[in-house]
């Protein structure tokens, strides 16, 4: 191979092998991807890969720190090859010629379990930054997944541009099945979907096929604000309906950076004036409420929930709550426009004893819950329950 000594294979992709190699002149270690040239059949992986790299170089003005750098493209008898950044060692530290060296990909790291929340946040930012650079340049990756995320000098970089293409709606449905959106449209939103699943795997350690289950980490998610924010990001990115997802990685990255709280940079003097203005405003509102609207009864929205049985009807002060069409409200439900005062609340259910919740003041409580402890009695036919 011109300029490089191939040492040993370190990875395998869909269309080629990745080798550990040294530059004969400088001794520098690199990763070299070999793709067989001129394979028979309708798919020419070498040709496709070259086209993708040409697009990448043409559309990206500068190298991006979160995209694997391709140093050199060349050919040797029977193959084309790409010289790339060498991934860090999975055990830690830089890549080396050590016989125990294993390239650190996100996939190989996730075999040990999910990443810690702070690291998930950081790696999410890195992944989306790299992907956003591609989207900004009018390209779509089409194969975002943990095995195509490498760690180089401690930073996550998106790799494998073999399926890279210009963003348009006529793109072929190519990529990895488990990371493809159900709508089948392979545009920037498809990359967003795949990135969302990759982030899901980072936070849960579960494969993409388990999405959106949180498995045994549910309690951990409920206690950790970082995991909660990442989860909400993922839920939107991986929505089954395309138009609900982020349009591209730049929008998703914007949502991520908006989500993490930052301290506003205000001077003490500014804070003082703003505080005074807010106090005046509050006073004005209170005065209006107390003095200007003495005869207007306040109305509020209240949610009613019953466990473990649903579809209970609701009696307020011995009167069943009815909708405008005359049918009763049934739990779980939010009822608008209720008087903001104390009410006597009773839930009623087929073949269950009435559940008397007692007096509830709707000025203070907007969520009323009732819980039946007893089993149903008699044969009531179909009982909407769980």
């Amino acid at each position, binding site marked *: 191979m011109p300029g490089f000594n191939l040492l040993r294979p370190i990875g395998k992709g869909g269309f080629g092998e990745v080798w550990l190699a040294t530059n004969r002149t400088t001794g520098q270690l690199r990763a070299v991807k070999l793709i067989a040239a001129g394979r028979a059949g309708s798919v020419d992986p070498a040709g496709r890969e070259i086209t993708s790299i040409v697009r990448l170089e043409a559309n990206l003005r500068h190298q991006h720190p979160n995209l694997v750098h391709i140093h050199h493209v060349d050919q040797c008898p029977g193959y084309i090859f790409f010289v790339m950044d060498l991934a860090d060692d999975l055990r830690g530290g830089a890549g080396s010629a050590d016989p125990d060296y294993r390239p650190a990909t996100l996939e190989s790291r996730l*075999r040990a379990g999910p990443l810690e929340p702070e690291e998930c946040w950081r790696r999410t930012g890195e992944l989306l930054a790299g992907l956003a650079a591609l989207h900004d340049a009018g390209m779509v990756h089409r194969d975002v997944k943990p095995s195509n995320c490498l760690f180089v000098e401690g930073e996550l970089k998106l790799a494998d541009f073999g399926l890279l293409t210009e963003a348009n709606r006529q793109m072929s449905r190519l990529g990895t099945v488990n990371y493809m959106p159900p709508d089948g449209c392979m545009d920037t939103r498809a990359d967003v979907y795949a990135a969302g699943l990759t982030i899901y795997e980072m936070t849960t350690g579960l494969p993409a096929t388990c999405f959106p289950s949180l*498995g045994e980490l549910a309690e951990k998610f409920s206690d950790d604000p970082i995991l909660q924010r990442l989860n909400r990001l993922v839920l939107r990115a991986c929505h089954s309906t395309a138009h609900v997802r982020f349009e591209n990685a730049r929008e998703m990255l914007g949502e991520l950076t908006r989500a993490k709280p930052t301290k506003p940079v205000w001077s003490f003097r500014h804070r003082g004036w703003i505080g005074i203005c807010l106090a005046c405003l509050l006073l004005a509102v209170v005065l209006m409420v107390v003095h200007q609207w003495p005869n207007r009864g306040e109305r509020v929205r209240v949610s009613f929930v019953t466990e473990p049985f649903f579809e209970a009807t609701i009696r307020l002060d011995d009167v069943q709550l009815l909708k405008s069409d005359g049918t009763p409200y049934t739990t779980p439900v939010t009822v608008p426009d209720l008087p903001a005062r104390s009410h006597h609340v009773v839930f009623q259910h087929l073949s269950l004893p009435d559940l008397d919740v007692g007096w509830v003041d709707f000025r203070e409580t907007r969520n009323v819950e009732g819980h039946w402890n007893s089993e149903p009695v008699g044969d009531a036919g179909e009982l909407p*329950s*769980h």
Partner: protein
Amino acid sequence: MGGKTSTTLLERLRDGTDQLAWQEFSDRYWRLIFVFAKKRGCSDHTAEDIVQNVMVEVFRERSTFRYDRARGSFRNWLGAVVRNLVARHYRAPSERPRGQGGDSEGDFVLSGLQHDDGRPEELWEHIYEQTMLAALLDIVRREVAPATYQAFELSAIRDLSGDKVAGITGLSRNAVYQAKKHVFDRLCELGALYRRTGQLSQRLREAMAMRPNGKVERSMTARLEQSMRSR
């Protein structure tokens, strides 16, 4: 809850090149086989091996198996294959405990059976039922919005409060309860039992608890993909 293997799927499996059919088959059954092997005393690694060996066996026998009501269902046949492979594995020299001189082959097989809760056939049926319930849940998981399914799982199976689920998913508390009801209704439409006595939650929890953990999910997903590519 039926859970019969469709004749169409069996016919598609006979075509060894129908990747989607084999994907569907392995998705449907690998956890059942894995859990059964674990209940019979196998380690995670051994149970994974047994899953792969069963898949190879089914692939090998795909042309000879014929759905015959008189002989019993496909799941009974599969159960027999799995039980034989587990028993065969216990008879292999590598599984025998070291330093226990004098164990006969029969004794070792018996010691494996001591991990059972009962007869193997009954254990198979019990695990089958739980796996099928989990499979119904998988169907609904793919149908509904991700936040809806997640809200259901966190509240109904993991028993988190409405407030906590709202915090994780970004839904309102009311939407959490609506999501829970929607998924339960859908499960019942698909045939999930235990509705009237309010035991569906409990049954789902048992079914989910039986599922392999995250590491095994990841490992088996990769192994099954690899073996399908190599066919």
